[in-house]
């Protein structure tokens, strides 16, 4: 039973969120449960940032409940090219976000719930949080075979992963968040989390693929709302507070001053792609052009999401060498991004004398290069 947000609740929240010192004379001392009104992954991640940066958690911990429309979320130090099928994401209009916590890549949609446990750095304790979740699930459906592993996963029937965990520790505060699969689209999940990009070499944190299952498959009467409620109930009991969920709007600057800047930052290319640890692409592919097959070898070093070093090996004289070296020179320093590469390549074509044959060869080479990104 998610309570409707009344004006009183919002005011209470804005008081709580703003005053750094405890005005803890009210009933919510000891803990606070909030739920996001938004399904936008960037807005919700921004709320996490905001709470992490601005809230005083000394005497009170916070549980944040949220759900996102289809999005792939990669860990802080991961490589999106290594983790998912970016082409498919673009086609299906699925968002890509990079969170600030560590760990691996996950797929979110409305059939998946996210839980964030905010505490002070000292009280950071992931096992306790996950045990709370399992306790809540068992209270809701005693027959569920769910348990926490020492890798901080929650497994269903000893085999299927239904929850993954990640955490962020700052100077004074920390948060631990985890997913919980209720009724997510497993088909889309497996297709977007499969990377088609070959020849990538990187020190980025890799993800551990796992077999997943929805709780809904185990018990079709379960819904996300029920799970959220059960977990909130258990949290309320353990923190000795009212089972009262405060709804927040992640776009509201009056309650969360500065939140929109945080949301914007999470959407920038520099954050999502630019924060990828240095990696290299080393691959070769065949191009079929008018009954002949050509061998092309490409080597690139990518740092901060930009091409630092670029090398393209083509059969001699297939394209004017001056044009090729111009392409390599232009790509260097540019984003490792299909859109920018297309623009550059098509512009370069303008500035050289050309005919239809050259144009079709050039387009073929560029299309293949773009497939790497």
């Amino acid at each position: 039973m998610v309570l409707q947000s009344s004006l009183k609740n919002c005011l209470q929240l804005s008081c709580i969120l703003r005053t750094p010192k405890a005005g803890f004379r009210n009933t919510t001392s000891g803990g606070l449960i909030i739920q996001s009104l938004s399904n936008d992954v960037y807005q919700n991640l921004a709320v996490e940032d905001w709470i992490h940066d601005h809230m005083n958690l000394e005497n009170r911990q916070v549980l944040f409940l949220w759900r996102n429309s289809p999005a792939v979320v990669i860990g802080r130090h991961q490589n999106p090219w290594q983790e998912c099928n970016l082409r498919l994401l673009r086609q299906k209009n699925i968002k890509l976000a990079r969170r600030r916590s560590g760990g691996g890549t996950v797929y979110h949609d409305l059939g998946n719930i996210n839980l964030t446990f905010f505490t002070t750095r000292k009280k950071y304790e992931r096992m306790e949080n996950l045990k709370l979740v399992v306790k809540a699930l068992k209270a809701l459906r005693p027959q569920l075979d769910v348990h926490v592993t020492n890798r901080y996963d929650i497994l269903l029937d000893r085999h299927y992963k239904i929850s993954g965990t990640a955490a962020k520790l700052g100077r004074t505060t920390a948060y631990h968040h985890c997913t919980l699969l209720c009724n997510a689209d497993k088909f889309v999940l497996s297709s977007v989390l499969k990377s088609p990009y070959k020849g990538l070499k990187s020190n980025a944190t890799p993800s551990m693929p796992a077999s997943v299952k929805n709780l809904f498959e185990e018990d079709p009467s379960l819904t996300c709302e029920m799970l959220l409620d059960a977990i909130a109930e258990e949290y309320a009991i353990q923190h000795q507070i009212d089972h009262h969920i405060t709804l927040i709007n992640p776009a509201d600057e009056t309650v969360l001053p500065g939140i929109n800047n945080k949301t914007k930052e999470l959407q920038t290319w520099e954050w999502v792609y630019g924060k990828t640890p240095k990696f290299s692409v080393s691959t070769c592919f065949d191009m079929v052009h008018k009954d002949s097959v050509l061998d092309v070898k490409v080597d690139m070093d990518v740092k901060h999401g930009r091409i630092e070093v670029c090398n393209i090996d083509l059969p001699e004289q297939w394209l004017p060498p001056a044009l090729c070296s111009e392409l390599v020179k232009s790509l260097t320093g540019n984003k490792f991004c299909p859109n920018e590469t297309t623009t550059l390549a098509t512009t370069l074509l303008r500035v050289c004398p050309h005919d239809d044959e050259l144009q079709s060869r050039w387009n073929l080479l560029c299309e293949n290069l773009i497939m790497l990104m």
Partner: protein
Amino acid sequence: VCIHRVRSCSGIRFIKSKYVCVFDKSALKYSHQQRLFRTSAVSCGQIVQFKLSDIGEGITEVTVKEWYIKEGDSVSQFDSICEVQSDKASVTITSRYDGIIRKLHYNLDEIAYVGKPLVDIEIDASKGVAPEEDVVETPPMSHEEHTHQEIKGHKTLATPAVRRLAMENNIKLSEVVGTGKDNRILKEDILNYLAKQTGAILPPSPKGEIIPPLPKPETVPTDPKDKARKIPVPVSRPIVFSGKDKTEPITGFHKAMVKTMSAALKIPHFGYCDEIDLTQLVQLREELKPLAQVRGVKLSFMPFFIKAASLGLLQYPILNASLDESCQNVTYKASHNIGVAMDTEQGLIVPNVKNVQVCSVFEIASELNRLQSLGSAGQLGTNDLTGGTFTLSNIGTIGGTYAKPVILPPEVAIGALGKIQVLPRFNGKGEVFKAQIMNVSWSADHRIIDGATMARFSNLWKSYLENPALMLLDLK
């Protein structure tokens, strides 16, 4: 000199462990007196080893994932130093000191150990550390009082400068209300506290007058506030603009623009402008818009402009041509691939509609829709962006009347369309009526196009648009 020696010594670790910074937590554990080696000749600061603090959950090692600073950077207390990762947890390590980074102990992706040095920071001698004599004479007790005030498990936060101010004025940090982030005590808080006590705002004591800390916190020494002090008169400060120039390399779209425009400069441009009365066309479009909507296509004015241009190019094919590098040959292109300049988030792109000469207005509109949605999603392919032979730029959607567009090589002509304005004009009977007027500005390559050709083409294009029924006659 001493510090240089320390740095170059390979057995450095053992010597350094004796240099315990006054603000280091471990100072509490050592009850012996602390000595600082310093020379008076060189005024460099003291190098402190900042150790990686406990992460929690019994974790002993982490991987360094990102450095936020490099050697030589200056840091303030609480600035982020690096990001480390351990077992799905990402941790931001912040600095405990103000100073300059002198050494990073790990490279990226190396394993760092809890309790071992992470970075070396040189603390500014003139700021954070009190002169030698004071430190040597002081029993650890009072340092505890002023540096680490553990009250109910709370550590009172204050920068070294603020602590010194409190110390000089014999204020217990625990009694001061902090108004900074995380209840940090700021200089203003100390001054406010003092003001409340004496009824006046006192300036901090000058550096020469440092009072040695007391052996017992309870005893209050001779109060320096007894001396008569003048309240400083506020001086109006000149307005200081602290903005800095920002230089960054040109990449991406801008790089592409630079190349295109540099090539375009080689073309001698001439301009020709005119005014088009679109009153009839506006009416026609209003009628056709819902019909196109039914077929799932958004109909703007561009499809009409594009089709009319193509009809004009049939009569003046030199405008759809290309001049070779050496200006020896002119190639008349058979296809009318008319480019439409699009403004996207990243910059200007020009996809083109292929073979307009065999497309209906509806087909052109449909193709434009496709290009526009791909363009805004940043997903245009190379095929859509190459092969253009003639370009129209609808700058009027943003604003403006006349423009001076730049030809996109290897083309030889371009048209810029201004905004549609409602203006008074005279009709055939000499009456004033409301006309929908749009301005067009053409640019053409004067090496192969002359003024007369451009003018005639423009007139033909204009006549098709002013009287759309005329297009019917010449449609293929």
